[in-house]
C-alpha cells in the first residue's frame, strides 16, 4: 500500500503540475479545492481507480457496485452504463414498492381525470367550509402523487443497476425542468419523468426534446397551452431556445422567440375526452395523443422565419421541423455538452473536451450515450477521477443518495420521505425548482456555510440510524428497526482510508462511538466530492 518515498515524491510533483495547469481553467475557489487535495495521502491506484469510477458513474459507490465493476473491468463497466439494460426492474423489495404506487398502476389520462373529479366535486359544494375542506383534500391528493413520483425516483437512484441512466434521468428532468406546484402538474410528474425523460436519458436528444415538447407537463408549466394565434404567449418559446437548446448566447434574437412562439401555437393540453369543435377543413389537422392535443383552430398558419430558416406554415409538423433544426444546431451541441461535462466532470470543463463532445454530437446525430462516451473516456476524465483526487463537489441530491447508498448498500429502504425532506431543506427538492432553468451544479451554489451545516445534521441523523428510512405508515409492514449503519467495513479499510487526508483519519480514529464515526465519515471533506 505504501509507495516508496521516491515514487511518492514524483507522483506528488506531477499532481502539483497538474493543479498548476488547471488553475487557468478553474475558478479560484475550485483551484483552491484542488490544491487542498494535495493533503491526501498517495492513492492506492489499483483500488482507488475502480472506486472512483464507480463513485462517479453511479449515485455513490457501494460494495455491490464495486464487486460488479471488478468482475466486468472498467471498460466493460463504462460500456454497460452508457447502454443501460433495457430491463430496469429493481430488486424485488424495491420493485414491489414501486408496483404498489398509484402513479405506476394508472395512466396519466386516468390519473388526471380522477383528480379532476375530486376538484370539480369540491367546487360544487355549497357551503364555504365544506368547499374549503374538499379543496384541501384535492391538494393533498395531488401532493401524494408528487411524493409517489419522488419515492419512485429515489428508489431507482438507490437500487437500479442502470446507475448512469438514473443520474441522467435526474439531469434531464432538471434540464427540462417543470415545477410541481404549477396547477395540477403534480399529477403529471410521474408520467413526464417515466415516459418523456427516462427512456431517452441515454438516447437521441431529438427524441427527448420531442417527447418533452409534446408532454402536457411542459406545455402546462411553460403556458404553451395558452399560446394561440393572435393571443401569443412567449414563455415556452423563449425557454426552449435559451435553456433547452441553443443557450442564451446561442445566436437568436427576440424576433426568433416571437417566431417560435407562432410555431408553437395550438400545441396544448386537453383534459376532456372530447375533441374541440373544428371546421371541416381543419379536422384532418387535429392531433390527439392522451392529454396532448394540437388544435388547428388555435394555430397560426402563416409562414415563419426562425434563425434565418423559412418554415412553411402548415400545422403541427412545423414544430417537428423546428425541433430537428434546434437539436442538430451547433450551438445546442456545444451548450448541452458543456452542461453534461459540468455535471459529471468539473465546473469549468476544458474547451478541447467540449469540442470533442460537440463533434460526437454532430457525428452521432445527437446520441447522448455517444457524447457521454467521449466525456467519460477522455483523458481529463481519467485524470480527474482515477489518478488525482476528484474535483466535482456533490450537489445535495448526490450527497443524500450517496450517503444512503454508503449506509445501506443493497438493503432496500422503505420510506424515502426523510430523503425528500432533506433535499427540500437544502434547497434542491425533487420537482421543486420553481424556475425553468433547473438547479445549478457548481461548487459555489452548494458549499455555503448554511449548506455545510445542514449536511452535517443529515450525516448525524443518518449515521446514528435515526433517519426513519425503514419506518412506514403501513401497520402490516414488518416492525423491524435496523440498527445504525456500519460504515467502518472492509471497503473502508481496504480502499477508502488510504485516500483520506490525515485530519480526517485522525478525527475518525478519535470518534467516541460508531454512530459518531458514521457521522464524521459522511461529513468528511472527502465524502463531499465525487
Amino acid at each position: 500500500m505504501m509507495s516508496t518515498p521516491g515514487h511518492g515524491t514524483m507522483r506528488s510533483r506531477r499532481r502539483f503540475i497538474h493543479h498548476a495547469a488547471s488553475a487557468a481553467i478553474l475558478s479560484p475557489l475550485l483551484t483552491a479545492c484542488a490544491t487542498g487535495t494535495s493533503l491526501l495521502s498517495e492513492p492506492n491506484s489499483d483500488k482507488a481507480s475502480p472506486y472512483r469510477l464507480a463513485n462517479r458513474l453511479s449515485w455513490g459507490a457501494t460494495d455491490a457496485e464495486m464487486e460488479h465493476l471488478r468482475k466486468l473491468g472498467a471498460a466493460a463497466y463504462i460500456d454497460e452504463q452508457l447502454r443501460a439494460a433495457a430491463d430496469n426492474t429493481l430488486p424485488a423489495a424495491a420493485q414491489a414498492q414501486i408496483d404498489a404506487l398509484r402513479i405506476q398502476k394508472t395512466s396519466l389520462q386516468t390519473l388526471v381525470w380522477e383528480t379532476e373529479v375530486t376538484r370539480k366535486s369540491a367546487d360544487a359544494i355549497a357551503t364555504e367550509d365544506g368547499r374549503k375542506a374538499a379543496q384541501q383534500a384535492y391538494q393533498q391528493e395531488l401532493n401524494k402523487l408528487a411524493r409517489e413520483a419522488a419515492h419512485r425516483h429515489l428508489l431507482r437512484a438507490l437500487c437500479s443497476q442502470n446507475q448512469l441512466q438514473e443520474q441522467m434521468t435526474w439531469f434531464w428532468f432538471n434540464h427540462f425542468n417543470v415545477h410541481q406546484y404549477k396547477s395540477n402538474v403534480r399529477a403529471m410528474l410521474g408520467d413526464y419523468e417515466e415516459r418523456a425523460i427516462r427512456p431517452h436519458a441515454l438516447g437521441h436528444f431529438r427524441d427527448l426534446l420531442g417527447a418533452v415538447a409534446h408532454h402536457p407537463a411542459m406545455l402546462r408549466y411553460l403556458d404553451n397551452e395558452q399560446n394561440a394565434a393572435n393571443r401569443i404567449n412567449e414563455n415556452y418559446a423563449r425557454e426552449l431556445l435559451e435553456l433547452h437548446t441553443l443557450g442564451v448566447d446561442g445566436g437568436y434574437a427576440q424576433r426568433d422567440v416571437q417566431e417560435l412562439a407562432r410555431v408553437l401555437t395550438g400545441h396544448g393540453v386537453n383534459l376532456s375526452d372530447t375533441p374541440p369543435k373544428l371546421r371541416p377543413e381543419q379536422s384532418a389537422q387535429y392531433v390527439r395523443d392522451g392529454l396532448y392535443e394540437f388544435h388547428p383552430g388555435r394555430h397560426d398558419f402563416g409562414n415563419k422565419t426562425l434563425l434565418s430558416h423559412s418554415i412553411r406554415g402548415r400545422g403541427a409538423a412545423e414544430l417537428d421541423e423546428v425541433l430537428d433544426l434546434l437539436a442538430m444546431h451547433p450551438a445546442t451541441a456545444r451548450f448541452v455538452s458543456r452542461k453534461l461535462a459540468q455535471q459529471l466532470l468539473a465546473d469549468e470543463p476544458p474547451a478541447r473536451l467540449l469540442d470533442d463532445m460537440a463533434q460526437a454530437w454532430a457525428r452521432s446525430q445527437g446520441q447522448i450515450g455517444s457524447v457521454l462516451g467521449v466525456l467519460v473516456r477522455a483523458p481529463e476524465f481519467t485524470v480527474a477521477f482515477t489518478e488525482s483526487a476528484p474535483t466535482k463537489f456533490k450537489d445535495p441530491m448526490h450527497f443524500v443518495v450517496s450517503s444512503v447508498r454508503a449506509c445501506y448498500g443493497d438493503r432496500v429502504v422503505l420510506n424515502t420521505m426523510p430523503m425528500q425532506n432533506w433535499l427540500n431543506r437544502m434547497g434542491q427538492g425533487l420537482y421543486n425548482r420553481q424556475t425553468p432553468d433547473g438547479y445549478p451544479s457548481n461548487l459555489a451554489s452548494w458549499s455555503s456555510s448554511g449548506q455545510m451545516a445542514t449536511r452535517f445534521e443529515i450525516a448525524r441523523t443518518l449515521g446514528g440510524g435515526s433517519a426513519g428510512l425503514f419506518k412506514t405508515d403501513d401497520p402490516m409492514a414488518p416492525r423491524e428497526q435496523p440498527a445504525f449503519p456500519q460504515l467502518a467495513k472492509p471497503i473502508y479499510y481496504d480502499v477508502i482510508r488510504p485516500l483520506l487526508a490525515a485530519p480526517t483519519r485522525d478525527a475518525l480514529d478519535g470518534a467516541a462511538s460508531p454512530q459518531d464515526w458514521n457521522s464524521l465519515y459522511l461529513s468528511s471533506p472527502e465524502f463531499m466530492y465525487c
Partner: protein
Amino acid sequence: MQRRTFLHASLAATALGSTGRLFAAPAAGSRLLLVFLRGGYDANSLLVPVASSFYREVRPNIAIPLAAEGVRGALSLNADWGLHPALENSVYPLAQKRQACFIPFAGTHDTSRSHFETQDTIELGQADGGRRDFGSGFMNRLASVLQGRDAIAFTDQLPLVLRGRIDVANVSLKSMPKPSDAKLRQSLTSMYQAHPLEARVSEAFEVRDEVAREMTKETTKEMAGEMEAANRNAIDAKGFELEARRIARLMRERYALGFVDVGGWDTHVGQGAASGYLASRFDELGRGLAGFADEIGESAWRDTVVVVVSEFGRTMRENGNRGTDHGHGSVYWVLGGSLAAAPVAGVQQGIEARTLFQNRDMPVLNEYRALLGGLLARQFDLSAAMLEQVFPGAQPQDIGLI
C-alpha cells in the same frame, strides 16, 4: 479559526488585510437589506400610472382602477402615480410618512429579457459588455469596502450577489436552526483544517449558534411578558412576515448587510388586478416589509435602508391570458427610517405608446448601478474610490433619497 471573514490565501495581502472584526455589532452603523423579487414582478401593477389612459387601454382586464367610492383601486401617491391597494395597511402608511419611495423606469441595460441572465447582471453589478466574473457579486464587494461589517444571506443557498472574495454566511430563517453538539463540532472543525471549506465550516457553527441564541432570547422575553411593544406581532406572523421579522432582529443586533429573495412573480397567466394572484403576493410582501420596519425598532430603522429590486418589468400590454410577458424597465422600492424623498423619485416620463421601449416595455431611465451607487454612497458614506470597487465604471446618481 474565529474570524468571521475569511480571505483566500492569494488575496490576504491586499488592502483589505486580515483584520475582519469578530462578532461585533455594527457600531451605530448603517444597514442595508436587499430584497430580490425573482421572476420579474409586474411593476405597472404596483406603481400604477394613474394619469395614463394608454395604460388602461392596453390592459383591458388587468389595469388597476382608480380608487373611488366603492371601488378598490390605486392609492394616490401624486398626480401621476398610485400604489396597489394590497399595500394599503402595510407600505402605504410608510410612504405617507416619507419612509417608502418608488423609482420607476429602473433596471439594467440588459435586453435579453431572460430571468436568469438579468438576475445575474444585477447581482454581479459589473460593467456592461465586459466578461462577467461569476465569483464577484456587488454586495460582496460592498462588504469588502466596509471592512469588518458583517454580511449575511437569509437564504438556503448563497446568492450570486454575496459571492466573492469574502466568505459570507447564509442561513434560511424560514425554520429555526438547531444548536450544534460541542464534541462533534470540534471533530468536524478539525477535519476541515486547512481545507478550502474550512472557514465556511467554522462559520456554519458560529452563525447557527448565534441565530439559535438570538431566537431563544426573544422567545424567553416574550414568554416572560417583557416583550417590547414593537415585537407584538412576532408570534402571530406567518410566511414572509415571520421571516422578515426574524431578519430584522438579527440585523438590529449584528448584521450590516442582508439579503433575502422572494419568488413567484412570473405572472404570464391570470395575474388579477386590484385583487387576485398578484395582489396576494403584494399583500404578503408588504406585510413583511412593514413587519421588518416595526421589528427592527425605531432607532435601528433610522439607520437602515431596504431596497426591493426585480430583474425586469413586464410588457405594458396584457397578453392573451390576462397576464404579462417579460419586459424591461421595473420599479425599485427604497424604504428606510431616514428617507427624505418624494414618494416617487428618479427620472420619469409619461406612459404612452410612443414612450415604450421597443414598442413593448417600460424604458430604463434610471440605471441600477448608478441608482444603487448613489444611494449606497450616501447610506454608507463611501468615497468615490470605494464606490468604484462596488460598481466599477458606474456614474453614481444621487437622486436625494436619504
